[in-house]
């Protein structure tokens, strides 16, 4: 990635907003159906203090949940590398864990985790750990088998093979999963807030939607997107810090 033209995303965004604004004006879509960006911007400015207050609890839940997801995912990936039967037994359960619509077991969540930040964190973790775990597992499997063999001949334990070869080899794949998870984290927190909460952007959005104020809904979406983009950028920077060898090699040409 060329770091010299950070203007590109801005330009794309502006074009996107412009098209949207023009489309709304040209077709005369009413504001309660699809507000124009200009109107949303106005609302955003008006509601900013309230939005920021709600953002705080959402962002916190997203961050904590994401961190928990990463730990769980790394642990599971390492575990599954130990024996094929663990892999074969656990992998389907992971898949199943993702196919349960959280909303439909929401009461259980609240009974287990209460109304505080915990259920939100759990939802975020549940949503985020899967992409990281799969990317990590597949990335570890993709490690050069000859390098793994070399380590075996050196007398490495299984754990050493994981730590010295499989984990570092899986890092690019891991960060792909991390980026996916990071993108989902804030959304996960918002969904978590639908399960029952007293504050957060999810609360804000449901209320605004209930009052037919789509401009407020969109203002909240913009905040969610911004937080997500920041998180995404942070992950990208982290990747560059953790894998200097990787980016060095790729910027040679």
């Amino acid at each position, binding site marked *: 990635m060329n770091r010299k033209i950070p203007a590109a995303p801005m330009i794309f965004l502006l074009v996107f907003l412009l098209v949207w604004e023009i489309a709304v004006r040209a077709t005369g879509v009413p504001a309660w159906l699809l507000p124009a960006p200009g109107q949303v911007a106005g609302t955003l400015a008006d509601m900013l203090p*309230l939005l920021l207050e709600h953002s705080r609890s959402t962002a916190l839940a997203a961050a904590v949940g994401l961190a928990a997801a990463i730990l769980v995912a790394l642990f599971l990936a390492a575990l599954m590398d130990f024996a094929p039967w663990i892999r074969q037994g656990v992998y389907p359960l992971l898949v199943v864990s993702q196919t349960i619509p959280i909303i439909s077991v929401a009461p259980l969540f609240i009974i287990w985790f*209460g109304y505080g930040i915990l259920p939100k964190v759990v939802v975020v973790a549940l949503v985020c750990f899967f992409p990281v775990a799969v990317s990590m597992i597949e990335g570890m499997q993709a490690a050069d088998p000859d390098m793994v063999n070399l380590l075996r001949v050196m007398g490495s334990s299984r754990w050493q093979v994981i730590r010295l070869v499989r984990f570092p080899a899986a890092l690019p794949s891991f960060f792909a999963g991390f980026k996916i998870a990071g993108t989902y984290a804030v959304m996960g927190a918002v969904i978590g807030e639908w399960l*029952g909460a007293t504050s957060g952007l999810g609360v804000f959005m449901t209320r*605004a939607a209930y009052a037919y104020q789509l401009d407020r809904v969109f203002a909240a979406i913009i905040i969610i997107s911004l937080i997500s983009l920041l998180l995404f950028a942070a992950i990208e920077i982290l990747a560059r810090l953790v894998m200097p060898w990787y980016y060095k090699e790729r910027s040679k040409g």
Partner: protein
Amino acid sequence: SPGGGSPGSGGEELKPVTVMLDWVPNTNHTGLYVALDKGWYEEEGLQVDIVQPTQGGTTQLVATGKAEFGVGYQEDVTQARATGVPVVSIAAVLQHNTSGFAAKKEEGITRPRDMEGKRYGGWGSPTEEAVLKAVVEADGGDPGKVEIINIGTADFFTAIERDVDFAWIYYGWTGVEAELRGLEINFLELRKLDPALDYYTPVLITSEKLIREESALVEKFMRATARGYEFAITEPEEAGRILLKYAPELDEKLVLASQKYLSPRYRDDASCWGEQKEEVWDRYARWMYERGLLPKMIDPASAFTNRFLPE
């Protein structure tokens, strides 16, 4: 924080109590927020936390005691009790059912049999289908000719833009919004179509266990809550503003207009706010049971109680 209880003013320990709404805070809940805002719960020694729930979770959570009180519907309580979920209705928020079928004026739906050949947008509950069928049939129409579409979470105004001709609304919120928008609608009020359908919606609920073991708590809660609703009945404007204080995300115009519509309807023709009649419970439960919506008939007398209403 919005909806949260404020710390006690006195030195004595406040008892934490959770109230779980049925959905987003709205004018059905005004009395709760008034009581909270005026400190009337604290006067009763309660620290009330009002929580916004997920759709459908409130009844179970109240039944398990995870929330002491909740907002539900008669239909829901009946269904729950028939399935063995031990919840009890302790007050009718509105004395009469203010919901009904609404359509744009140009659809020309002025009576149930006009629904023939139209498309109905519902949220997927089995009861609504039965209700629809019953009213169309009673008016001499063929319910088989009404197409039912699940519109899920989409709102009324969006749904009727495309694919849907009419839907079920609460007049006190959606109907008022239509008025504010200047959208002309035909509204068929449910209770006018069939007296059995004049059930309580919404109601306040609690669990059998709480009534059994901590009836004093229920009493205290209801005392403050009733005060809240009484205030909302007499001071719609101020009550509406209190609600807005706790849910600033809502639309001010809509809340105030809705409050004006609802305030006289909280008590309506009852002797006091919250009163429930066994007749209403019995009639609707029988109605549901006869249409196969309940696995078994409930005892209507134990589904509700008026004993916690202040004199």
